[in-house]
């Protein structure tokens, strides 16, 4: 089972990388979201000490019995939220880029390059 999960997680990461290498900015964005999912899956897998028991102390108990690793889960939980925020901020950037440049192709987002190299505009360089 662990090997299967590892395979699925690694395959998701590979798919995500393939999407990120695209030049369509929306695909890159979706790829990054997918990458976060795959990474979170793998991370929780490493922390899971092969127990399906959630890390919640049973009523009447004072300490945690056999359960999944709470530390890895705490890490992954914040990672999910941060990954979500990252994806959304990127979505905002892509939308702004679309409004400004009317393209989602990263090669054509080039109005800054059109200004020319900076040293040609530097007034102190004579």
């Amino acid at each position: 089972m662990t090997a299967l999960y590892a395979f699925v997680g690694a395959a998701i990461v590979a798919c995500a990388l393939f999407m990120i290498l695209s030049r369509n900015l929306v695909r890159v964005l979706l790829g990054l979201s997918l990458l976060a999912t795959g990474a979170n899956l793998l991370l929780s897998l490493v922390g899971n000490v092969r127990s399906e028991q959630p890390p919640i102390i049973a009523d009447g108990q004072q300490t945690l019995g056999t359960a999944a690793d709470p530390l890895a889960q705490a890490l992954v939980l914040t990672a999910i939220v941060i990954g979500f925020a990252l994806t959304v901020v990127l979505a905002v950037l892509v939308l702004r880029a679309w409004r400004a440049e009317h393209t989602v192709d990263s090669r054509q987002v080039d109005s800054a390059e059109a200004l020319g190299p900076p040293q040609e505009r530097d007034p102190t360089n004579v």
Partner: protein
Amino acid sequence: MFMILLVSLVGALLMPLFARMIGRGAGLVIALLPLGLLVAFIELAELVERGWVLGQGRRWAPSLGLDLTLRLDGFSFLFCLLITGIGALVIIYAGAYLTDKSRVERSRFFLLILLFMTAMLGTVLAENLLVLLIFWEATSIISFLLIGFDSRSARSRRAALMALQVTAFGGLMLLAGVLMIGHVLGTYSMAVAIDRADALAASPFGGPIVACILIAAFTKSAQFPFHFWLPNAMQAPTPASAYLHSATMVKLGIYLLARFEPVFAATSWGRATVITIACITMLVAAAQALRAESFKSALAYSTIASLGILTLLVGLDGPAATVAMVGFLLSHALYKAALFFCAGSVLHATGMQRLRPKSGLARVLPLTAVASVGASLSMAGIPPFLGFISKEFLFEAQLESSWEIAPLAAAVIVNAVMVGVAGVVTLRPFFLGRGEGSGERPIVRHGESFSLVVPPLMLALAGLIISLEPDWITRAVLRPAVAAVYRAPVNVDIAVWHGLTPMLLLSAVVVTIGALIVRFWHPIHVRLRTMDRFDTLAVERLWEETLRGLVRGSTALTEVLQHGDLRRYLLLVAIGIAGLGAWSVGNLGLFPRLPTDDPLRIAPAMVALVGLAGALAATRAASLLGAMIATGLTGFATALTFMMNGAPDLALTQFAVEVLLVVLLTALLLAVPLATAPTRTPLMRRTDAVVACGIGALLFCGIVDMAANPQASPASDFYGRASYLAAKGHNVVNVILVDFRAFDTLGETTVIAIAAVLARSLLMTRGGDVPAGRSQPVHFSFLMSGRALSWLLFAASLVILWRGHDQPGGGFVGGLVAALAFALLALAYGVDWAQRALRVNPLTLVGTGMLLALVSGLPGVAAGRPYLSHLWWEPGGWLPKLGTTMIFDLGVYLVVLGAVLTFLFGLQREAAR
């Protein structure tokens, strides 16, 4: 001495304020500072006269060998007198010279000049070589600022940059040399370095140390091949030229050479190099001085020649050379500054720069003419001026030294040219051409004023008085200075008449040739100007070409590295990561240890495969909408996987995130085109697939190996045991988030808050909001259930938040679920309706949440425990336990809710435009 430097620095910062208040006479007031310092130094003359060395030290950074140590000996004393004395005159002169500038500009000039004076004093007083280096660099930087003082002129900026490049290059060399000295000797004390000069020269670093120090000195003192910056530096206002580029700063190189003479003399090639460079510099500068078209550049080239003479004298051995060096240093500083002042007065009064016209200005500027004559006679070495005596010393030093005839011949030629230049710069503007009705007569804008006349007159007079009444200056200044440089007492005898000596004969020869040069200056000048070989040989052009080449080269390199294609950047990074991964997996032995006793469970396996299918579909989807749905499928499958593997918190969070992503990304997809032409060729896609699969394979090997051999983490174990006993919580994940690792969570919450602010500023709608009256058709299923459902979601979010400490849930999930409630409203009734239902700005929620999270840590501090240590109150009975973690979790809840709503409203509004 610390006191003097401190007064100088503070004064430099305060005194220029007078220039803002007082108009013309500001120079006279500000000059009180250098004059006061001059008096303070003269008070110390008695110590110096006895040959004592005054030292002061403070510890600064002992671990670096950096101590703030100063020392005053005879040689430093000579420099200090020159710096403060000429400094005072320069400031008086500048007060009148800069009348055409605004008061702000004038006070800036005074600030720079006074700061420069402080830096110069620091350089010559420093004992620790690192301290010396700091002040040395400060002089370079202030020189840059002064040359570029007229910053609107392109020529000034170019000259300033050139001077900075050359002198800062020398400064770097000095740094390297000083560090090597520190490495060899274990100390940065200059006195130790000189005492152990032989050990220094014999060490393996001996050659590089000497080379570095020579280069530093040559750049600062404008020796060939670094001489070209000095004539350009004449773009500075004339008072600055007189001060920095003739009287003081350019002599720092000489100062350094003289101090380190024992070190380079201990190598086999040191003296020969110095003398050769000095001779080349003298000859090049002499020829250029005759070619020069303007006053200031003629004076600049003659300054380079003089610096060459000084370098030569440092290089020659024997006590006479040292006497000559010190004597010439003094006399040159006096007459050259005076000549610069005179040239500046002519420039100021007439706007005329060129030497060729004969203007006969003596009638309009009589006192300036007198000063010019006095200084020129000293420069030409005519008795009884000081210049004559120093020239006698020069020839005596050469005849006594062990060197051959070549330096002597060079010195004779150069001195003859100096006579010529001295004659030309005085005769042509002031005396020739009187009464002739030539058309080139310049317009005189004003006559003389006190501040413009007194400084050059005083300097010219000093040149006469010192030679006629040399007692005090010899006793208190020259003899100690010579002793400090030669490191043994030397008898210094200043007298105009030494009898009939070979030196007198040489002087006669020099004056004769010089007189001929004056007589035939015009033909010589025109002839030299027509020879353009000078221009092709100019090192200046080589320097500029090198710089331009550097810029061009780095542009080309940048274009190769920064090609601007996102895919190639990322591919490079991916390949790099794959390489690192392969290396580390290879170290493990390539074959991962497979887990044992790990049966396959059918239902979870199916869910995982659905997730995999979603990811694969996302890569192949032609439409972006399809890709998004496939990505979402993977997300939901992952959430289920979490659910089935003992991670309900993760499952809840992932579910909420996936739903929100669908809502938010739909808004984006509504705006952009869904189907576009492929952006990669099939070959590129294959390459990318291979790289991605490679990384995936490596990842698989690593993860399987890690997961098959789990290490029980002591941290997890601790949290499991302490969660209830120490933090009153049953849900260990939540307790870790809000209590044990609350500071981390605070950081992550801050990140989300910043993301919200960023999104808000990016999505600011310009030109007011979108008209709100637009009616939106509402689907009947939403109409039926939307409001009820959103209330339900909102209530659920509060429950999730409340129970999070003991059951799955918490601030993060709660915030996401609450945001879902509003997302539903926005979908059903439009953004504006949803925003009105919220009643507050989402960013206000973010701010309130951050505040709550930050404040929740304070009670712990009040109880004497670290920040974010949470406190609990258990009233018992039917009342629930209460703790500051709840405030913290509520803060997280509000930040997440506010952030998501900022994204949601912003994106939907922007997409609908």
